[in-house]
């Protein structure tokens, strides 16, 4: 799976026009808030909060054309739905790492 979906990004640029940069910045802000939220939830038993955060993160990732990041969020969401909260730190770390890659790629555009 690709880090970025180039086709989707072309379409998005086309829609957003001058606001594309604003969109990318907004995405960074949203993502960093989500990651902070997820970090704070690592040792909690708050399965529902993890599920919601992962779900919303997944949504915005798919919207900005980051399919791999979206699918990593989906994995975490599924674990939360199944109440399988062991090793979620691992999942969150993977998500963080992938986010950094996506961020770098988006800044390069």
């Amino acid at each position: 799976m690709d880090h970025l979906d180039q086709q989707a990004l072309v379409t998005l640029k086309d829609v957003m026009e001058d606001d594309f940069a604003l969109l990318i910045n907004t995405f960074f802000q949203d993502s960093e808030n989500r990651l902070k939220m997820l970090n704070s939830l690592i040792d909690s038993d708050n399965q529902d909060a993890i599920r919601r955060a992962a779900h919303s993160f997944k949504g915005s990732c798919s919207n900005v054309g980051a399919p791999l990041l979206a699918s990593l969020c989906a994995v975490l969401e599924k674990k939360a739905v199944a109440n399988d909260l062991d090793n979620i730190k691992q999942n969150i770390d993977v998500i963080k790492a992938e986010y950094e890659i996506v961020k770098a790629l988006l800044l390069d555009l």
Partner: protein
Amino acid sequence: MNDQRQLKILVADDTDTDRLILETIVRKEGHTVISASDGRQAVDLFISESPDMVLLDALMPIMDGFESARLIKLHAGDKFIPILFLTSLTDNESLVKCLDAGGDDFLSKPYSRIVLQAKIKSFNRMREMNATVMVQRDEIAKNNARLLQEQMVAKHVFDNVAHSGCLNSKNIRYFLSSLAVFNGDMLLAAMRPNGNMIVLLGDFTGHGLPAAIGAMPVASTFYGMIPKGFSMTDVLKEINNKLKHILPVGIFCCATMLDINFRKKKLTVWNGGLPAGFLYRLADHSIHPIKSTHLPLGVLSSRAFKDNCEEYDLANGDRLYLWSDGIHEARNIQGDMFGEAKLIDVFAQNTDPEKLFDDIISNVQAFIGDSEKDDDISLFEIRMADPQDVNEYAYETSVKKEGSAIAWDLSFEVKPSSFKVFDPLPILINVIMEIPSLRPYNASLYTILAELYTNALEHGVLGLDSAMKKSPDGFSEYYELRNQRIQMISEGFVKIHISYCTEDINGRLVIRIEDSGPGFDYQKKLGASLSTSGYSGRGIALMERMCESVRYIGKGNIAEVVFVWANDD
């Protein structure tokens, strides 16, 4: 986009990224955007801004999309506000939850401009269609309310006409239910001047206004004629004739008409097209069906119409039941009809005749249960009773009839100075028409009096020869002569003597007219009928047909006719 008006669209999503994309897409489609970042805010904005459409994220903080969709639909009321859920939820359960909460469709992430554009267009079409339907619904509701209001007024008039009369008599019970505001069934009852009660139960083909309209002329004819003393058969003929003229082919009135004599305990029935009524005899608890032997009213021309009736002798406590086909055709939930067998059964099961009426109603209603009613249900019961147990009018008439041999005489003389200016006939007819049982014979009596008076005046007092009228020339000569003589007349008279008496069954009116003329030799004509003896000009043939007897007395200057009529029937 050009043909589409600009919509106000509410976008609610807590993720700024997603909301930014949606806002941009929607705005580029030419619509106005209002944004909310949680469910509570979405509901508040919906109430303050009244947007045309809502794009709602399912998972949001403070209030989620499901709850806000519910509240938004609640506030929208009848107005159709499409709600599209924005979701990357894909499990069936979540999608069903969106629809249950009032969502109309989904838009999944990642958003596609083309799909969103198509959905906004299609939901806007539905929204506009719904708005049109709502306007039309309100219009229909308004029209319906007005129609009902008009019908209520008309029903008031109709009820006054169709259900008045003496239905409140002590020996009558009736039940009329209707499908529409108007009842296709009609029940009329009135007292004849002789104390008999006339009842008419009618069932027009159809229901509602078309059926009720036919009832108006029937009711007005009925209530117009019965109190004047016309017989049941006269009224039947008149109603049939009227309906035949005014109703379209295929619409008619099945009817049963009764004439009940409470003094003599007699029942006369005419049934045209209604289901057989039941005559219940108290003595042996038997029931005798009173079947239809005629076509309904309004079918046959007056020439073909048959008015022969059936007569029954009753005893006090005997009961007659009439019904329209609504009872027979009442259906239960399975669609079976109540039918005559079940009616007979109700009578068989009954132990207290006082309760028969209620038994029939409760059995039919229990049979129908909750199923839809097909037809108007009408039931009428009348009990044979003494006049004082019927109503005040029946009682008063019966007291008068006790000494029913009533007699009076009237003498009237027209003097010479009056002949040319005064016509005594209207006064005499007015006096005679004061007798209710004679009212139906108004026309006959007028003819008789007119013939007699004209003969007395023209042939007797003025001495004109009726033979003159045989040729056209003679006819005008006759009237010329009549005018001359009437101007000059200075002596002579016409005396009119009317003697009235009633016996129990018949009435008898003897009219004797004497003139001052020389008379004529009627003796010579004995052996031959007066009508064939050359005096046809004197209208005798006509009178012989109408009267019991016509004769001349003395020197032929006195004519006497006896008119007999049924005083009580």
